[in-house]
């Protein structure tokens, strides 16, 4: 079976806008949470978010948006984008450069792109409002492709001139992990030699605050304490946005190009809770099922796993489910991989989360560190028996799991191994 490697990374995140800044934040546990200006109103009980620095994507007109000067985006490209598309465009430039890919390497029948975003509620809201107030024929002709759930893949696939596989994934917070899993399959099945995988989300009032209604967001006013997965006093997640882009390539392509690799993507598993539309299974049934499938697919024993980047978003129910799922898989054999949730630093990036955190694992494996789980004052007693990593370790994992769980009870476990 052909092997698959991660050869390029790009990040636009709340903890850094390139791989070196992200790596530094992960090592020093520097978080990106802040009081978020759009929330500082009396009728908004949520006060914090983890914004992306150096991007101002606030109005509805993309030509008003500003972004770091190292990137240029032509009007004909940016005009059909939502904010998540701009983040992703910039992260993709990084990843492509990092992997040393030429235009010909990207635009050919053997290179595809899978992407995941929740669309842009902000742009969709504007479009529908204009439709209602100005009339059906007075809406931007590109309003749809700039707003609906596929906006990210529409834009990137077209503007990067992708000619291989392309698809958008929509399993909420598991979306970009699903994208990575199916991108891996495409390479293993010989359908593609190279896949670009993108996760991205807007970071604004409209992308984050709808989660307040389901009481999923932290109401903490202190940015240093808001996102604290596995802490006994956790009270919800902190919203974030941005983009992460990974380049996956077959071992033949890695050998042909003589390119560096971060790590191997060994395989993956997925399973569903069959339980509730928005609440994770109390015993983490789907997530433990995903981990079982991942072990089976990679022919590994639980004792070989050295690190788990948990999905744990800092919600009371979700973190507990994941803790129970991890115990179910690892405790019987006495295995005790280090576990941390980097969402304590980044906040929860929804569709972005899986790709971003797989990128973190790739950095950790390549550079030799294991990121800690920040902001824990009192560890939730439910985590007894799990090696929650409170500080960053100066050694990297040899095998890492990256867990993701999404609405509807979708769960994905990706397996990375030191190359």
């Amino acid at each position, binding site marked *: 079976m052909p092997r698959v490697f991660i050869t390029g990374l790009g990040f636009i995140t709340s903890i850094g806008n390139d791989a070196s800044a992200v790596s530094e934040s992960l090592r020093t546990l520097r978080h990106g949470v802040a009081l978020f200006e759009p929330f500082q109103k009396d009728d908004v009980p949520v006060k914090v978010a983890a914004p992306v620095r150096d991007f101002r994507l606030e109005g509805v007109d993309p*030509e008003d948006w500003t972004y770091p000067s190292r990137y240029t985006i*032509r*009007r*004909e490209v940016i*005009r059909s984008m939502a904010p998540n598309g701009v983040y992703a465009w910039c992260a993709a430039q990084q990843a492509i450069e990092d992997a040393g890919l030429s235009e010909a390497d990207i635009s050919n029948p053997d290179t595809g792109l899978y992407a995941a975003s929740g669309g842009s509620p902000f742009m969709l809201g504007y479009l529908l409002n204009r439709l209602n107030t*100005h009339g059906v*024929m*007075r*809406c*931007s*002709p*590109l309003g749809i*492709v700039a707003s609906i759930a596929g906006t990210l893949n529409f834009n990137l696939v077209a503007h990067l001139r992708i000619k291989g596989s392309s698809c958008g994934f929509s399993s909420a917070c598991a979306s970009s992990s699903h994208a990575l899993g199916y991108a891996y399959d495409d390479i293993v099945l010989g359908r593609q030699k190279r896949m670009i995988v993108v996760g991205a989300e807007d970071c604004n009032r409209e992308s984050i605050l709808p989660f307040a209604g389901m009481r999923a967001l932290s109401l903490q006013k202190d940015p240093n304490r808001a996102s604290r997965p596995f802490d006994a006093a956790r009270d919800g997640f902190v919203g974030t946005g941005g983009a992460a882009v990974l380049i996956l390539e077959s071992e033949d392509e890695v050998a042909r190009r003589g390119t560096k690799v971060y790590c191997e993507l060994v395989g993956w598993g997925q399973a569903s809770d069959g339980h509730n539309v928005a609440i994770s299974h109390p015993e983490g049934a789907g997530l433990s099922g995903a981990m079982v499938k991942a072990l089976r697919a990679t022919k590994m024993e639980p004792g070989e796993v050295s690190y788990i980047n948990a999905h744990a978003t800092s919600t009371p129910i979700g973190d507990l489910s994941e803790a129970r799922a991890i115990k179910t898989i690892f405790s019987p054999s006495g295995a005790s991989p280090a576990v941390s949730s980097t969402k304590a630093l980044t906040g929860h990036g929804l569709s972005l989360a899986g790709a971003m955190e797989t990128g973190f694992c790739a950095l950790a494996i390549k550079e030799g560190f294991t990121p800690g789980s920040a902001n824990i004052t009192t560890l939730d007693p439910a985590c007894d028996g799990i090696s929650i990593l409170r500080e960053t370790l100066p050694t990297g994992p040899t095998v890492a799991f990256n867990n993701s769980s999404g609405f509807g009870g979708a769960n994905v476990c990706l397996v990375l191994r030191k190359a």
Partner: protein
Amino acid sequence: MPDAVNASSPVSDTSKFVLKPFTPEDEAALRESLRRCAPSSFEAAVQFRRTGNPEHVPAVVIGVIERFVEPDLRSKLKDADDDLRLIEDLGIDSLTMMEIVILVEDVLQMSINNDELRNLRTVGDVKTFIDCKIRGLAVPKPTRFIPIEVIAAVMPMQPPFLFINEASVSSTAANGRYRITGQEFFLQGHFKDNPVMPASIMLEALGQLAVLYLLEGHPAEAGKVINPATIYFTGCEGVRAHRVCRPGDLLSLSIKPKRSKMPLATFEGSIRVGQEKAVMVEEITLTFALMDAPTPPLAPPAPAPEPTTPEPAKAPAPDGSPKTPDA
């Protein structure tokens, strides 16, 4: 614009521009809508909204088009004539065309249907179209590109005495091209060992383009068409030859109607080779007569019928393939 256009164009009440009061709020909204356009476009739009005077419309339309053209192509628009092509010359695709239309609709307070956009090919087409909409006139036939087979099929002249290879015809102008091959029979004797295109033949070529205009672009009365067998040359004024034209030269021919009143139509014309003037003609006058339009059973194959189902506005992509938004 020829008188015949106005005389024969039915006024459509439903599309006629109606002047509404122009409030300070309207002006603020207008300024916001046009904030990426040249200040002159905003001023023209204000004048138009206050007075309803269509003279201000071209400045608004050109300003809006300019705003949507990539900066490196905008210089083309600065000293453009009406033949500048939206797709080929300005890189405007069908979606950008819709962006232009939506802004024009917003600024000029008018509505434009998808069907009406489909054939707008040049800057002149757009200006004429908007002008007619505002005046409540029927929109004239937009510029059509006519290939050699069609030219030969409709023209009374035939090879070896046909001097147009390709042409485009609108209601306001016709443009054509002719490449001097060196195989023209008359070049054997004009002149001895020195083939030069006769100025009289170049005048003939302009006359032929005017004939093509009468047959394909001239607005005729309802139920009538121009009888090709009745078109003849009657006279010309102010003919000047500026440049010797030889085999290999590509002649760019252009005529514009100046006056038209049955049974005469008068045109101005020019021939250029590249940017160089070759022949200028102040007036060429043709005579013509009308006949009843053929009844349907006897009609020659009609141009492609209008689609009966609504569909998104289409303009060919630069590569020539149709480009529509995919659902």
